């Protein structure tokens, strides 16, 4: 309980709790909408890079710009990536009033 509270406080949210039902790939997340990463199509080098850069399960994200070359904000910085890579990241949009880092 305490842990959940603490995680909430820092913006990290337990996967599956308090999330709206619908899930989309990161490239389809509208700009400005806060979301949480729920999965990264794992296994290879690229996925590993994404995770080290902060796009791993439970991380809060929002997009700054969408498109073929997009910008997403995660772990306190902006990441520029291709839509093809972003497609492998699944996110769940959050309610607007939840804490955003």
């Amino acid at each position, binding site marked *: 309980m305490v842990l959940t509270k603490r995680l909430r406080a820092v913006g990290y949210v337990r996967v599956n709790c308090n999330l709206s039902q619908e899930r989309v790939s990161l490239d389809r997340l509208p700009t400005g909408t806060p979301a949480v990463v729920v999965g990264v199509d794992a296994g290879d080098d690229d996925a590993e890079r994404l995770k080290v850069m902060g796009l791993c399960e439970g991380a809060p994200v929002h997009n700054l710009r969408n498109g073929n*070359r997009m910008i997403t904000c995660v*772990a*306190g910085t902006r990441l520029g990536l291709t839509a093809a890579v972003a497609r492998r990241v699944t996110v769940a949009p959050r309610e607007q009033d939840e804490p955003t*880092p």
Partner: protein
Amino acid sequence: MSASHPLPVLDRPTPTPPTDGGAACVALVGNPNAGKTTLFNRLTGLNAKTANFPGTTLECRLGHARVDGLALTLLDLPGLYGLTTGHLEEQLAADALVGRVPKLPHPDAAVVVVDATALDRHLYLASQVRELGVPTLIALNMADLARKQGIEIDLPALSAEFGCPVVAVSARTGEGIETLAHELQTLLNAEAHPPAPESITACTECDGCPHTARHRWAGEVSRRTSKTTRRSIRRATDAFDRFAVQPVFGVLLFAVIMAGLFVAIFWAASYPMDLIEAGVAQLGNAAGAVLPEGDVRSFVVDGVIAGVGSVIVFLPQICILFFGLTLLEDTGYLARAALVMDRLMVKVGLPGKAFVPMLSAHACAIPAIMSTRVIDSTRDRLLTILILPLLTCSARLPVYAMVTALLFADQPIIGGLVFFGAYALGILAALSVAFVFKRTILPGKPKPLIIELPDYRAPSLRTALLTTYDRGLVFLKQAGTIILLISVVLWVLATYPKLPEDQLAAVASPADAALVASLEAQDTDAAREELGLLHARYAVAHSFAGRLGRLVEPVFAPLGFDWQINIGVLSSFAAREVVVATLAIVYGLGEDAAEDTPTLTQTLAQQTRPDGTPVFNLATSLSLLVFFVLAMQCLPTQAVARRETGSWKWPLLQLGYMTALAYLAALATYQVTSLFMA
């Protein structure tokens, strides 16, 4: 995931503190852009050298510093995001941290350089380093920026979270450096080092995704120990970035910035280049005045001074290019440019980050090849290096200028178009070759771009100057030594065996022999001078170079080259710009005339073949131009390519494919043009 790339574990749990007065070794580690190099430079000044990781082209810098009475050997490692990604670069850095890289000193301590304005991201790596078991200190860098952005960090709290000292510094202003030295001293002298706190080791041991656990921990710690009151810089960056990476506007913006940079380079470099040229000429004159006439003088003046001088002339362009690019990179803009260009470049199999090297290659391929280090995948980097020399560097300009002057002296518009065409041909060839290589020897797609876009910031003049100094020195060392060697070899080939004065009449063509006889009879100054030129021309023909030129006549005849042009072409394989000087010599003008283009082109235009038609007709001139656009004629570039790729295989491939391409394209040009002219 991380199980397949376990954290390296330290063999020696407690490193021995330095006792014998030898300097303790401290490794600087941190994310890209954390300020490691700035801190390193602040501590060491110019007292540093670049070292390669054995067996790789990956570099780190080693330097010595004395801070507050503390003697240190510092190791500046490449930037990394994590220790477990399995990247070669990150693996090597991790190995270097625990002293597992041969020839690099074993670090007694690690300083994790952390960007105080992006704690969330940087604490991830910091916690991994803390777990290694090396005595660790955290340098919270960019204290000045953090203050401006209203970020307050609770140092004691952060120190408690990590169980190691934390010092706030600003590598740029020098603030906090004494405290850093003091804390380092304490750390190095400590008897025992506490293990990493459990909350950190728990991230590695937990069953779930270790990245999640660690990022979560980092975010949490950042939240607990820092608070931000102002976010204006971040907001401004966000707002600008929405436009800066737009497909149309972004490309335009990039084009404008780069065009500005290049105009500035050509403009600003022209002054020091003129100075160097004048200096080299004066040096040649001075040496010529001191030395007695003969082989030694010719060797020093025509061989060494002229040869090395022709390369040193490009130093200003290289320095200014690096200066401008470092400033631009420092602002954070180039990361956006890579994102914008990625979209266009991927189509031919090149990564977006190749764009800046490709632009630089229009000044000189050497700094361009050196700047491919920003490309992190080996395949992408190799492909970029392979195609870079196809782009028109400034050493080709004298050749372009000569050919256009020869063909279209009084038609400036057509002349301009030919110039433009030569540039376009280079770019087109580079992209096509990339496309072909992507399908053949370097298959695969460029690694998808995942790039951090840091906040924009004012660039550091000091960093730019130090980088410029460093790159300039590399250029001088690498290119200078090799060019010296080539100049000597070329001089020998063009000088020996000598043609004795009295044999001139014997080797000359019947017409020239008659001329020689009549000139000798006249015995005036003018006649003697003409005789000298005639002798120079036959001396070249008589030399090894001349014989070689005749030997390869059958090879180059289909391109419309005669044996004199062949000498020019052969000599220019070392450095393409020498062709102009060589042609001047072989057509009997003397070296000085090469400076004076009208004279040179007039003389060249008057040359005739045995059948009486001009040598430099449209077909031959265009063929020569195409050959010079596409051929790999620059040994210094090859030497740098060898250094950057770690083997001769790639430069040789470069030489092979470019020569073949140049030959075939020149052949087609000559044959097709001849057909139309006939």
